[in-house]
C-alpha cells in the first residue's frame, strides 16, 4: 500500500519507490529505499504533511510525495 495511507503508530518496510523528479531524488537522499524501515509518527494538525521516523531521523513529507513510496506494514 502507499505510505501515505498508513496510520500513525504503524511500522512498515519499503517495497518500492518512484525516484522520478526532484522529490524522488530527495527521498533517495534521505534513505527511502526498498528494504528500509519506516515508522509513522503523526499527521500534522491539518492532516498534511506527515511525520515519519527513518534511519533514526524525523522526516516530514507531504502526502503527494508519500504517494511515491509503496510499503508493507510490519506491525
Amino acid at each position: 500500500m502507499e505510505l501515505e495511507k498508513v496510520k500513525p503508530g504503524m511500522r512498515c518496510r519499503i517495497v518500492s519507490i518512484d525516484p522520478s523528479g526532484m522529490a524522488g531524488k530527495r527521498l533517495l537522499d534521505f534513505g527511502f529505499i526498498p528494504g528500509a524501515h519506516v515508522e509513522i509518527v503523526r499527521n500534522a494538525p491539518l492532516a498534511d504533511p506527515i511525520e515519519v521516523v527513518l534511519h533514526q531521523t524525523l522526516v516530514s513529507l507531504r502526502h503527494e510525495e508519500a504517494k511515491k513510496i509503496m510499503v508493507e506494514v510490519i506491525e
Partner: protein
Amino acid sequence: MNNPCSGCPGSISCLPTEEEPTENQSIADSYTVAFAGQPNVGKSTLFNALTGVRQFVANYPGATVEKRSGIAMVSGVPLTIVDLPGTYSLTSYSLEEKVAVDFLLKQPIDLIVQVADASNLIRSLYLTFQLLELERPILMALTMTDVARARGMEVDVEKLSIELGIKIIATVANRGKGLQELKRTMIDSCAKPTKKPGFSLDYGPILEPVIQKTTEELATVDISPSIPLRWMAIKIWEDDPDLDRFIHSSQQKRRIHAQR
C-alpha cells in the same frame, strides 16, 4: 621544536616569519579547508568554535547562497576554513548542492573535513561516500558524540576510521572537546597530503560495469582535469541535471560511439 607561537591565543595579524623553520616539512603560508556536511549536524557550531570572530560572509558569485569563511590559527599557521552550505548529497538538484560541488571541485582546496553527526551516522555516511568519490584529501569530524551517548549509542571511532580509510576526530563543539586535536590533525593533513583514500564503494554487479564503461568513455571528453572521471560517471547515472558545467565546449578528442 621551539615554537614561540605555542600558547598564543592567535591573532589574524600574526603570520609565521621566515626565521621560523618548522620541523622537516615545508609548511605553506596558509591552507584552505572546506567544511562539508549535512544540515543540522552542528557544522556551523564547529566552524564558529574554530574561527571565532575571524569570519567573513559573502555571496557565492551569481547566487544568493551565503559563503562563510573564517580563519583558524593553528601553530601560527592561518587555516582558511570555508563553511560550505549544508547538503544532503552532492548532486546538483538544489542551489546549495551546486555551490558546494563547484567549490569542492574547482577551488584549490588542501583538505575536506566532513562534519558528521554521531547520533545519525547512517545518513551522514551517504554523503561521506560521495565526498570520498571526489578523490580529495579528506577527514571526518564526528560531532554530537554526547547526544549519541545520551541516546544509548556508542561509536567506535577507531573501527570506523579503519572501515572508511580516513582519519576521524571525535568532537563536542560547544564544550570545546576535541578541537585541539582536530586542528592539529587538519594542519598535519594539509602539510602532508596523503594519497587519495582507498575506499571505493562497489555499486553492485549490474551497475559497476556500466560505470566502468562510462568512465572509459569520459576519458575521451574534454573535462576539467580536476574532476575525477569515476565521480562524473557515477553522477551521470544518478541523473545529475547539471553536469554540462564540467565539460568544456571545445572539441572532444574522439567521437563517442553508440553502443547498441
